[in-house]
């Protein structure tokens, strides 16, 4: 019984970390689908979200849920601002140039955070309604912090799903990601769609930040989690929204099992070994669709 519990516990914590990977991966996928750009600053957006929620909760004494909402708005606004000021002027330029711009943004954010008064290079934490609370299910002891991540992510996926499925602008976004030219002909404002994409991606990063901070705490190198979200997104097929979350969960669980049962060092590379294995067998990822090569 103990062994089963142990495994379940490990898997559960893996799933919750995986959900955060999934959220970051979702940001990658959204931006990639709309603009064909990989946003290297996605992890840094998560870090910014974590810092903003930290200031709101620990410095301004916001309640948790209000802080969550405020973080979503602030990050969404920041995403829109980034798109307006930096990325819009690059529409139509070679994709790799835009990718380098996002790399530049990630350098900039990571260092800029350390310069803002009150943030700096230290590690911070804040209290959430879930701190030090646990749920018992039989012998299984689950921390609310982990459970909250899973629940909030699930809710978020449902919201996003219905947004893309049932709203006009969601449909417009799907259309744009399929064929931009056709979308323009249909009267969709592609620039507005891009703007909205960045808004949503940044907001997702912010949510990821606030969810992750009770577990890893808030610090300037949080953004490196974005590197773990890459395999998650690729595993899911980099173009499929549910794939991103599933990929994230697979990576999270693998990592947490490898960290528990395999010798030290395997934890960090287990995800990559799985990724390379999957790519060799299925180059388009688990949920990707094999595209026909066009001349």
């Amino acid at each position, binding site marked *: 019984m103990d062994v089963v519990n142990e495994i379940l516990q490990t898997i559960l914590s893996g799933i919750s970390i995986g959900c955060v990977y999934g959220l970051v991966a979702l940001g990658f996928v959204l931006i990639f689908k709309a603009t064909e750009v990989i946003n290297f600053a996605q992890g840094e957006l998560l870090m910014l979200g974590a810092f903003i929620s930290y200031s709101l909760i620990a410095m301004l004494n916001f309640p948790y849920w209000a802080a969550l909402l405020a973080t979503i708005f602030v990050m969404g606004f920041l995403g829109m601002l980034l798109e307006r000021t930096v990325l819009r002027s690059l529409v139509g330029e070679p994709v790799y*140039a835009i990718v380098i711009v996002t790399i530049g943004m990630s350098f900039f954010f990571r*260092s800029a955070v350390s310069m803002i008064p009150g943030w700096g290079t230290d590690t911070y934490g804040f209290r959430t309604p879930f701190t030090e609370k646990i749920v018992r299910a039989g012998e299984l002891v689950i921390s609310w912090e982990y459970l909250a991540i899973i629940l909030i992510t699930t809710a978020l996926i449902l919201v996003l799903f219905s947004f893309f499925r049932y709203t006009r602008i969601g449909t417009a976004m799907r259309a744009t990601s399929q064929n931009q030219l056709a979308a323009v002909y249909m009267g969709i404002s592609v620039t507005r769609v891009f703007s909205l994409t960045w808004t949503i991606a940044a907001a997702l990063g912010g949510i990821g930040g606030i969810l992750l901070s009770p577990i890893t705490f808030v610090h300037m190198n949080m953004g490196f989690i974005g590197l773990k979200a890459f395999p998650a997104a690729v595993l899911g097929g980099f173009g499929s929204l549910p794939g991103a979350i599933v990929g994230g969960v697979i990576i999270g669980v693998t990592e947490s099992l490898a960290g528990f049962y395999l010798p030290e060092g395997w934890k960090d*590379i287990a995800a*990559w*070994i799985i990724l390379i294995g999957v790519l060799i067998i299925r180059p388009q990822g688990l949920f990707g669709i094999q595209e026909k090569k066009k001349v």
Partner: protein
Amino acid sequence: MRFIMKTNYYQDIRLFKYRSTFFWYLALVSGSLILPLLLDEYLISQLTFICMYAVAAMGLMLLTGYTGQVSMGHAAFFAIGSYTSAILTSKGVPFILALPAAGILAGVVGILIGRPILHLTGLYLAIATMGFAFIVDEILIRWESLTRGNMGFYVKPPSIGSLIFDTEIRFYYLSLVILILTLFAARNILRSPTGRAMIAIRDSEVAAQAMGINLAKFKTIAFALSAFFTGVAGSLYAHKLFFINPESYTIILSIELLAMVIIGGLGSLHGAVFGAAFFIFLPQVIIMTRDYMPVYLQNQTGLEPALFGLLIILVMLFEPMGIYGRWLKTKYYFEMFPLYKKDSFKREKKYQKAERR
């Protein structure tokens, strides 16, 4: 603007397009030979780093700029080169053998890695190579009996015969010679059938295949060549720093190499050198401007990386084709002098037509 009437096909693949180009390159080489006599030790060592990174960037340029295969794992080849050379020289192998050995081992690993992931394209290839770099980095940390793990590895200054490269000037000349050899080799590879096959693959895989180019073969060759040059650069790097540990070869290095190639200008050998110079000199310039900043900013450790990030964004915003693109435009401006139009290089902004699901 000069026009040459071509009378045979070999004129297309000559090493130098015009006779005057050869002269200018000769002037550049002699300039860089005299330069260290005028500079202080610190600046010479920065120049050495430019030569070194330019060799590595050249490797990546062959793969990314000329074959169109993005790699985000070149730190791994760099690390393999460094460690091979460090371990071999510590076992008494002369540097003159260790240097090519570093490149060859990196090249062999490049083949082993390149072969199974050849059918990946674009983004997937980038991520797979990134994963490979993570795995190599972890191996370097864990294989302590060979690499001494995180403790790091001390490296002797290189020597050829009785000539020891232990001063900044000597090491600079060593790196410069290797950079020139690399440039010469790369230029020659590019005008050979192999190089032209690589360029064909970049421009269109389908068209290249239709022309009878074996995709798998030439992609593997590109991977091997690229890894070879990067490995050689890694070997130089180890001998320059005297001390290496796995922390120097993280994903940041891979990203920096890729950024070097793109900022320099994809698809040009000049670009590799420009990119390396940009990455080495810009931080120096930022440090120099530090004294003129407000006091609050002066005391921030994050100031330099932040400004560096900002400058990368600005350079790409104003010159998406990289520094080489700007160079071409400037050259064109003077060649065409009164006739240059602002829109000569203007690209049509277009919406992507790719059909994706």
